[in-house]
């Protein structure tokens, strides 16, 4: 079980959090102007990387805040955690 450093609350057990999948997928501002393929790209396509992945996490049983995490899915090492709207750290 991970130890996750919530940017608002500090270190807490993973059981307080839920993972919201890949990060930095921005909802298109003008969905109506997209083709089916372009919309499907946003809606369905996820990278699911083995290795360093950018993820969204929510402190669901804590402050309820969403934040971003850089995690290596092959060994579960958390490389960075940063707030929503902040730029990902350069890797």
């Amino acid at each position, binding site marked *: *079980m*991970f*130890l996750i450093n919530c940017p608002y609350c500090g270190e807490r*057990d993973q059981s307080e959090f839920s993972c*919201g999948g890949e990060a930095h997928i*921005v*909802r*298109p501002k*003008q*969905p*109506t102007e*997209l083709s*089916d393929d372009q*919309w*499907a790209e946003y*809606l369905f396509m996820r990278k699911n990387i083995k290795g360093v992945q950018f993820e*969204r996490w*929510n402190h*669901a049983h804590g402050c*309820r*805040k*969403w934040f971003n995490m850089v995690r290596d899915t092959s*060994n*579960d090492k958390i490389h960075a955690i940063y707030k*929503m*709207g902040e730029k990902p750290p350069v890797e």
Partner: protein
Amino acid sequence: MTKFRVNKTKYVDQTKSVSFYFDGKSYHGFEGDTLASALLANGVHLVGRSFKYHRPRGIMSCGSEEPNAICQINEDTDITEPNVRATEIELYEGLKASSQNCWPSVKFDIGGINNLISPFIPAGFYYKTFMWPKSFWKKIYEPLIRMSAGLGKSPTKPDPELYDHKHVHFDVLVIGGGISGIIASKIAAKNNLKTILIEDKNILGGSTIYQKNENYKINNKYSSEWLNEEIAELKKLDNLTIKTRTSLAAYHSYNYLLAKENISDHIPLDKRNGGIRQRLWKIRADKVIVATGAIERPLVFNNNDRPGIMLSNSVKKYLDFYGVSCGFNNVIFTNNDGAYETAVSLKEKGISVEIIDIRKKSNSKIVKNAEKLGVKIYWNSTIVNTYGHRKINSIDIMNLSEDGSNVVGDKNRINCDCLALSGGWTPMVHMHTQSGGKLDFREIDQTFIPNEIDENHINVGSCNGDFELDDIIKNTNNKVKNFLKVSENEFDNTSVLNSKEIDKRNIWLLPNYISEGKCKSFIDFQNDSTAKDIKLALREGFKSIEHVKRYTTTGMATDQGKLSNMHALGIIADTAGVKMGTLGTTTFRPPFTPLTFGSIVGRNVGKFFDIVRKTSIHEWHSQNNAKYENVGQWKRPWYYPINDEGLHDAVQRESKAARDSAGILDASTLGKIDIQGTDASEFLNRVYTNAWSKLEIGKCRYGLMLNEDGMVYDDGVTTRLGENHYLMTTTTGGAANVLSKLEDYLQTEWPELDVYLTSVTDHYSTASICGPNSKKILKKIFPDKDFSDDAFPHMSYQNGKIDEIICRIMRISFTGELSYEINIESQYGKSLWEKCIEAGKEFKITPYGTETMHLLRAEKGFIIVGQDTDGTMTPIDLQMDWIVSKKKYDFIGKRSLYRSDTIREDRKQLVGLLTDDPNEILEEGAQIVSDMSKKPIEMIGHVTSSYFSPNLKKSIALAVVKSGKTMKGQKLIVPMENKNINVTVSDSVFLDKENKRINA
């Protein structure tokens, strides 16, 4: 004292006799014994039958690696437990144990016939044989396999014992209380680190604690003496917690570990006093030091599995720790110096022992010591066969060829009653690999040792591949100092004297003059797989160790291959002609040893299994005979039977009353979200399919919420309480998810919106009153209020007052009747309800539950999200086009509504169904077909809601049917088990299409 109890030790109190039963027979042991040591003291070796061939098997080891002595304890009680290793259970007065794999008895075993036909049970036998004919599987193969599988019996009643969980945080966790674990704990604790030491045995000290040999000394004392002094000092340290009888079960990421403490398992049943049986420790530690030791390897040769064949170090422990000699005529079969310690211990107590060593020589101190004591050693030799049915009685040995690939010369028979094996040592790297650590292969002694990269965990002692006493002390000290960043200490100048092993030789599968096909050289004792099976798997094309393992079942028993994995790998490498290090290892998964279900669930049983949510009106419902339905965690009244009324009759009565006069429903469980902020209207515009900006203050509107994929997600009525203030209601089950989803969009997609969401579900109680007389009842409760349609129209809200308590009155309807919902702060919920009942008395107001609510809304064709929808229905599929705004530029899910898939005409669409026989009620979930003649019959939809309507006096149903929109009036069939029901597609609104009743 029994004749095998030859030695007095301080660990077994021979003044305290303990009686116990094994396979129904009474025996005596002593306090301090394990079940295994007590059995051996009574001369009992045969404790079970092997899994596949049902061969007699005996106690092999003294720890968690035991493959054979698997017992069922306390049979025929509520606390009976299977799969208990006799080597791990501490003896207590009255313990009842029985061997697990021996139906009908351990001495006469019908499954033994498998042994005789074993040439026909090769690797993959189960896959190959029991497949065909298919009809044999259920009636013949499965019962046969189950009967002879010997996997123990699970208890049949709820576990009466208490289990506990404990969450703790430490600076340092040390796993294993052997010599290296003790050194590590002492260094940590003395350097002001809050430390916990965990040991699975009941005393500390590992195998050093009973070591009394001239060749192994620390600071000029016997290693056991030195260690005893260290332990005594250790126990005085303040910031060290020592937990014995506690075994590490799992090592998860970020140094989160689970350990199971046995609290009462060693206490006689009648003295346990209902206390806690086991406690699961959930430990988060900054630093973890693994000191789990090593397991001795057996040797693989023909018939290496008879009772009386044991591991050499275990024979030594039974002698030096428990005072039990496993035989009086011992032979040790070895490839290393370690076994000579066992020989010296035996010989010093005057017990006969000879050694067969596959090596050509060894001149170490311990070997010379054995020779000096007169132990006969057969160098460069191997065992080619063993004899003895229920216990070993003799062996055949031969010389090895120069390269060890064959045997040469004549057979030589030696009599023995115990054969001790030592094939070297396997570091217990389970914890290291569970944590995600990798392994390196060390050629010189053919071991996998930890490759450490995690800066927060190290391995010390023999689990790290240090097998010599001087290495263990020196390396443990240096490593721990580095790891914990501490300076010099008391262990820096420890002087160690020990015999060093120089000569090594390893042969994974020992050669034989008997052809390979006729040898039974066991690798996995618990799952009965042999060297031959491994080779067959390779011949049949299996290459990966993971595949060979599954095909032969090697390493897949409850011991997870603690004794077998290395030999399996070695034989694969030798047969395939590849280097063992390149094969990789199999994955060790938690738990290290089996855990009880009780320890996993802890206190989360019975009423603590899940939260039960009750409304503030719950007590009234119970007093009025409500039957409940679970909706999420809520208890909702389902129906209120009068006298011995059943569900159907009660619902018919309730439904009729609600339409004829007045009904009242506890609607408190609906999710309520308070929405405030200057952008609240814009926010609602984006999350609902319909438009919200023009909703006036004091008005209510029904809204439908989609997922981004266009499928219906939730629905409910939202009320505008003020300029920037709304109250949203959600479905009962969807409340938490809707809030999460809305928060997600607010925080991540639209952070620019000024909107705040608060869950207020529990803050308000809601009484929903419907029916033609509801207005009159409201008037009685709020006499000052004007309830005329002009002053208080449908879909509007006003505040009202009961005494001095303000409540919100919404005129909204889920039944199609004139209807009001009164919301009041929860603590007043029950008094509000009682007031409504009192006011409604003259109109025979009838409380109704969820079943009636469902029926009433179905009459009106209102959907229930989650019943009539299943995550694949768009609003268009539901024929709810009217609620999807054409004008709005965007809302969640809008773009998906015209994807190529969602605009298909042949999607399943919501329709009504009327049965040709109005008294026939369809089953919810039943399939719908149109053409019975074309095989296979195509199923074009299913029934989602179905009721008998007392108001329409006929059966009605909602269903989703492919292209249903175009099928009105068409005849369809609902085929059931015994008959086909004829139905006609209808409109989904069955009652009051003109919506007259809402303003009745």
